[in-house]
């Protein structure tokens, strides 16, 4: 896989999964 494709794939996963993890963390904390 070429480097630029890897960078953007990782960027996409990071933004989405990172965002989801933060939001779920807040939801669990406020439970």
């Amino acid at each position: 896989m070429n480097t630029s494709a890897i960078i953007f794939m990782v960027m996409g996963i990071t933004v989405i999964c990172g965002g989801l993890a933060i939001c779920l963390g807040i939801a669990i904390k406020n439970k």
Partner: protein
Amino acid sequence: MESRGQWGSRVGFIMAAIGSAVGLGNIWRFPYMTASNGGGAFLIPYFVALFTAGIPLLILEFGLGHKFRTAAPGVFSRLNKKWEWIGWWQCAIAFFIVVYYIAIIAWALMYIVYSFNLSWGTNTEAFFYSNYLNITDGPFDLGGLRLKVLIPLIIVWGVTFLVLSGGVKGGIEKANKVFMPLLFILTIIITIRGLTLPGAVDGLNFLFTPDFSKILDGRVWVAAYGQIFFSLSIAFAIMITYSSYLPKKSDITNNAFITAFGDCAFSLLAGTAVFSIIGYWAYSQGAPVAEVAGNGGVGLAFIVFPMAINSLPTMNSLVGVLFFGSLLFAGLSSCMSIVEAFMAGIRDKFQFTRQKALNWSCGVGFIVSVIFATGAGLYILDIVDRFVNNYGVALLGLIEAILIGWFINLESIRGHVNSISDFSIGKWWNICIKFITPLLLGSMTVLNLIEDLTVPYGGYPTNALLTFGVAVAVIAMLSGFILSRFKWAEDTLLQPPKEVKF
């Protein structure tokens, strides 16, 4: 008196909201939008659209539904008596969407059966158009009913009816708690299978390699906003209805973020699954991915993907069952939410019992959807889809953002949302609703209008576009006006809506 119903848990609401947002478009639209609009670089406008339009609109709809605890017509009526028709217009659009959407789910159900012995053979295109749909020569040549479409159509309507009969907590919530994990598991298995195949890398390169020149193209930004907007079930009454079933003490903002991120996560997963397998197929054919990938949509699911399944070294049938199974579950969870959206509108206004409203909604919906089980079903579906989305959903999103952004005190809605949520949203939200969303949705509508006026959509005859496209879009709007003229039942589930001053 029968209660409106309420979610049993926060997880149940989130699962149902993600279930509604995750649909067929995540599987067959997102990967192609990405690949054809700059690859990895498309993710930049996509994320900007997510944070400046998708999430703000979700927060707005969740907030309105939660505050007024009624479906879309009641919400708009309470904002301004003269706006009730907009809520009904949203319900009518939801009705016209579900009647064709359910036909595609029926095809997916039939293709699960076909997957067991790969019935589509080597010429998947001929199988789909001739053997399965037995398609006629044009939209006006109905050619009679196709039992292979009608029978699964009846089954899918039956499942939708049964789930919705169970109510909000006992039906929708329970079903989504099964469908959603199952959908993610099926898609993860396909992704793992795809990634372990030779050539998968070529597919992923095709999907993610960035083309930065595209970012400067305004149409790519409009496409990114369109993808986010259509994917999140915004502006056709669903999210307002779902949030109207939230208990008083409920979070709004965090739920909106989780729903949006969950939807995007599934899109990314489905894109990886689809293009890793298409990459393998291209590899096995010795052809570039671009040459075999097609254009997404119905063609991807029922023509390109079966070809790719044929070429797999092992477990062909299993991958077929998993793929069409994921289409089925993604479709069903969205389908339930769409029916619930217009059914709840009817129920709230006319004080029907849930069962009576459901009988009418599913009964009339089924009768109308039978047209998509004829030999001209695919043509009509294609035309209705184009017009209902572009001159229904997108236009309603634009109207919603302008009316609420400019004629309602946004600060009071933000105040309500912030008072009950896990975290607060700042003034950036007002800017998104007031300026960014109308600008982008307005551009999208104008671009689509110019395109449709310049070249007849899909090469269809003008009279077909007028009959199944323009007429349906106009009927949806007129239905909104007509339904808003009826009086609210005196002893309604809610009190007859009073306009609320913001």
